[in-house]
């Protein structure tokens, strides 16, 4: 139940009214993380240019084209910049079909805060679309919306969210490694049963209770790309208010799924095969989405469409996906090979090679420059003989003569590099000193979108290191070392995770799994028995070391017996085995038979009370004997020792004479032991002789 304030509250609507309600959207123009640091220190992520257009414009265009009529844009970090941008844009013109409300607050710390504010301000009246300000998409969600509404009508508000996914196979470059999810769903109802991020997991585990909902067909999908577009029922905002520990959508989804039985809320998914949807969640994704954009995968959102309707943004599209803005000059001998977008008033020198790159407005590029997968924003100056590979160069940066940027470099705002320098892979250069960051960082919440402005002047004084940024360079290197901070989030580099499939460990896990399987098939309770055996061994060892009385040992073994649920027969077999293996255990398996018996026989004597405690009935004797036999069948090099062992056990009155004789007669029916006897005929004879000697001696004794 929601407190309905004023006329705009969510008083029950009739069906017709519901249809007529304008479709609303909540756009969160803040990422609440710092994956774009230090770039986002100067510009919020939503305003970073992608294909020379601010990312938030793509999101708004997507919402508008899908039929949204009212959008609430929530800004936190650098809200003024976003506000200015939006006020100047076409969205705030009176003719805009999509009314944009900008809501700013410095207090938002997470998506949860935003949605709690949505609830507090009572902004949404009906199903709404929830997106981030960095989502680029052309998916038509009206179908998903229809399904969502239908479900809500049929099931009385049980479905609270429909997540939009795009089919895309694992490893596709528009899939963000960090966002890889595995989804278990009900095939028929499209209900999400299990939702889990797979990053860092080797095995995917699905609890059994998710399969107990009466359905007999489920799907486990790893071919889904999370577009970060969700269709939410109005309850979503309330649920966030009720559960103040929900910070992200991930928390929310997991919370709903776990509490499904209590709260009765469900989440569904909508999978689209065509259409494009991706969230620019790190630079890797920025690179992929930007190149998809230029390759026209997000049609009709293409660079030449100028959908933001800004003057001077128009460009022409020619073959090989080469786009040129107005007043672009290209020097003699320069080639734009393919997938190149060049903003207006940019001039390019002679003999340049440009491929798969985006160049912003008002850039100047010298002669003999090679650009491949470069993302250059506005007002960038590149001198001659520069080479740039898969790197981002932000506004106002200057790259001097003969600089070489290797893969995954980032030059943040207004950095100057060079001349004559080669930056290694993954170098990040910013005008902000890394330490300035750390100083402010003490109690700061983790967001690139936090206010850090006050100490800027102080840090400016620190000198630039010419070895790092070149003799004329300006800027500080952001070392990878700063990634060593405890925060997981920071440990992931700006470009996102490096793909390392790690096949080695994979096979290991397989091997271990297999061996597990094998052992399981042999005997299901092998673990218990093994554990018990180890415990018995430990107990006996301790008994020797600490000179514990045999009665106490028996007590301990008995309690172990109950702990591991071992039968008396097994106790005796294991005890026999442990004792007989004890010399091997202590002194290695290379013992000669003589050494073996030498160390074993005193042990037998010490522990004979323990044996006597367990070997009472005639059957026990036989079991014990078979355990002895089994052990010596395994230790076939020591079979001759068996005679002495039996002899000793007989002398210690552990085993009775009758039992030993009986074992000889019955034991022969056993297949293996027959073999043993056959192979060890000599031994058998000596055994029998000993036996008879024993008989005599025992008779004498009596």
């Amino acid at each position: 139940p929601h407190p309905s304030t004023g006329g705009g509250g969510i008083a029950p609507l009739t069906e017709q009214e519901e249809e007529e309600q304008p479709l609303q959207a909540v756009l969160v123009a803040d990422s609440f993380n710092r994956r774009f640091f230090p770039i986002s220190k100067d510009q919020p992520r939503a305003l970073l240019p992608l294909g020379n257009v601010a990312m938030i414009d793509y999101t708004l265009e997507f919402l508008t084209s899908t039929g949204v009529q009212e959008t609430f844009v929530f800004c936190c970090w650098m809200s003024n910049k976003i506000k200015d941008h939006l006020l100047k844009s076409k969205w705030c013109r009176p003719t805009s079909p999509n009314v944009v409300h900008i809501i700013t607050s410095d207090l938002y710390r997470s998506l949860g805060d935003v949605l709690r504010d949505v609830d507090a301000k009572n902004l949404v009246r009906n199903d709404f679309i929830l997106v981030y300000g960095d989502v680029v998409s052309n998916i038509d969600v009206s179908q998903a919306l229809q399904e969502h509404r239908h479900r809500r009508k049929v099931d009385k508000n049980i479905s609270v969210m429909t997540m939009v996914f795009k089919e895309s196979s694992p490893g596709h470059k528009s899939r963000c490694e960090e966002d890889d999810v595995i989804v278990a769903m009900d095939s028929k109802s499209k209900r999400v049963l299990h939702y889990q991020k797979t990053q860092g997991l080797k095995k995917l585990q699905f609890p059994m209770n998710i399969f107990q909902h009466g359905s007999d067909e489920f799907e486990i999908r790893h071919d889904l790309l999370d577009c970060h577009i969700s269709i939410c029922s109005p309850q979503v905002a309330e649920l966030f208010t009720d559960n103040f520990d929900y910070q992200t959508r991930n928390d929310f989804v997991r919370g709903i799924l776990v509490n499904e039985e209590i709260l009765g809320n469900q989440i569904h998914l909508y999978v689209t095969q065509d259409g494009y949807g991706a969230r620019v969640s790190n630079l890797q994704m920025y690179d992929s989405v930007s190149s998809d954009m230029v390759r026209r995968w997000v049609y009709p959102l293409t660079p030449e469409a100028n959908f933001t309707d800004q003057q001077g943004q128009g460009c022409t599209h020619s073959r090989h996906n080469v786009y040129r803005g107005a007043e672009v000059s290209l020097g003699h001998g320069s080639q734009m090979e393919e997938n190149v977008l060049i903003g207006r008033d940019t001039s390019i020198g002679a003999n340049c090679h440009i491929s798969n790159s985006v160049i912003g407005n008002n850039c100047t590029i010298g002669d003999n420059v090679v650009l491949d997968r470069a993302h250059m924003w506005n007002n960038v100056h590149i001198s001659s003989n520069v080479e740039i590979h898969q790197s981002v160069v932000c506004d106002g940066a200057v790259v001097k003569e003969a600089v070489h940027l290797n893969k995954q470099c980032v030059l943040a705002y207004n950095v100057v590099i060079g001349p004559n320098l080669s930056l290694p892979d993954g170098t990040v250069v910013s005008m902000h000193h890394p330490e300035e960051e750390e100083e402010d960082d003490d109690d700061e919440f983790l967001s690139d979108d936090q206010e850090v402005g006050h100490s800027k002047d102080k840090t400016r004084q620190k000198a630039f290191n010419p070895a790092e940024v070149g003799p004329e360079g300006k800027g500080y290197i952001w070392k990878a070392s700063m990634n060593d901070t405890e925060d997981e989030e920071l440990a992931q580099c700006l470009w996102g995770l490096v793909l390392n499939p790690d096949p080695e460990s994979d096979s290991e896990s397989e091997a271990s799994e297999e061996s597990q399987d094998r052992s399981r098939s042999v005997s299901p309770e092998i673990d218990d028995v093994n554990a018990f055996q180890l415990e018995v061994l430990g107990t006996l060892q301790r008994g020797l070391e600490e000179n514990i009385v045999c009665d106490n040992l028996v007590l301990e073994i008995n309690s172990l017996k109950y702990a591991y649920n071992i039968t008396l027969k097994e106790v005796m077999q294991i005890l026999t085995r442990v004792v007989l293996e004890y010399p091997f255990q202590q002194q290695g398996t290379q013992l000669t038979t003589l050494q073996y018996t030498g160390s074993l026989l005193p042990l037998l004597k010490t522990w004979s009370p323990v044996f006597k405690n367990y070997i009472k009935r005639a059957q026990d004797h036989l079991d014990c004997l078979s355990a002895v036999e089994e052990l010596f069948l395994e230790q076939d090099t020591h079979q001759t020792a068996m005679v002495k062992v039996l002899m000793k056990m007989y002398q210690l009155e552990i085993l009775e004479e009758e039992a030993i004789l009986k074992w000889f007669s019955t034991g022969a029916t056993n297949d293996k032991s027959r073999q043993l006897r056959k192979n060890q005929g000599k031994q058998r004879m000596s055994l029998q002789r000993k036996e008879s000697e024993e008989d005599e001696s025992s008779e004498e004794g009596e």
Partner: protein
Amino acid sequence: MELQAVLMAAGGGSRMMDLTYNTRKPLLPVGNKPLIWYPLNLLERVGFEEVIVITTKEVQKMISTDPKMKLDVKMKLDIVCIQEDADMGTADALRHIQQKIKTDILVVSCDLITDAALHEVVDLFRAHNATLSMLMSKAHEFTETVPGQKGKKKTGEQRDFVGVDGTGKRLLFMANEADLDKGLVIRKSIMRKLPRMHIKTGLVDAHLYCLKKSVVDFLADNKSVSSIRGELVPYLVRKQFSKSMTSPNVNDEADQKLKKKDGNANLEIQILSRDEVLLQLTRERSCWNDHRGDMSEAYHGVRLRCYVHIMDEGMCYRVNTLAAYIEANRLAPKLFDEPAVHPSAAISVRCLIGADSIIGASCQISDKASIKRSMIGASTTVREKVKVTNSIIMHGVTIEEGCNIQGSVICSNTVIGRGADIKYCLVGSAQRIEPEGEHTTLSECDWT
């Protein structure tokens, strides 16, 4: 000869002991034919000319001597007897006949009654050069009331979880609910290769398998595997994704493994399940691939592949419970077009026999008897004014005057006294039911 057919007919029918106490499972009458006739007929229909039947001495004797059990098949039956008390599993049986196996095999269980198109299973086997292909079907709800069970018994049985890929053909996962106490666990590497997995639960395994010859050889070396369904199939399914089956340098690895003790067995199945060179070449040269979405070769280089054909419609029963037996009796006659009433049966003109009933050879049905939705076995005598509805009467039963039998199963050579009223009962063989008795829902059959 591409495939050798093997029929497993040595099972005891432990899940319906009431019925199989006197009659061995392969010989239970279904639609007045012994159960074993159905899989044989299935094989014959698709053109097998020879079949290896693994069964017990007792069954063999019955088949060759008892005219009622005469198998009406033209195929050459190569009957191999195994000791009944040896407690042999299906895999043990295969190992037993290893010498006879010259090609890939098709294994069928004797309790399978289906109208499935067998070629679907075999085509999968051929098309993908699979190591295993099998048949499954959607499970049927048994609608008939089962004698001896009050009300509908809730099936508390553990479900089987079967995982297939996006096309619904490749078998990726197989486990029983009972073994999944830690939840369903799948390796991520599998999901990366085959990102879409359908998990189905409401399926019955028809116990019909196409197996490569190498699997039989593997069994011969691996004595610990005793059941096809219980151990071999799960093993093969699992083995599809183990590293050793995909790595290109099998030989090196195999050499290493030889040195280890237990590697031997793996090695066997590994080498033999390798694709033929020519086939390998074809696959390399062609642009065909079994999957989309990544650039790796067809089947991701997996040499051991398991497939399953899941029947969407049609009939597929495994007669291994009483409920299934009753259901099969109701539906089986639709599988063959023979006259419902055997020509040698003596039937009075003034009796009523429903079109959905079957009357066996040399039956005698007297005046005013009424038989509806029932099966009457050979040499059974039904006297005046007897009403039989929804029941299965086996061979040589005598039903005296005025009896009323409803929803029951009467086993062979029983005599039912005059005027007895039997509802939803299971009556054992060679019993005498006292006249004028009234019985409902009893299944004790007095043989103890």
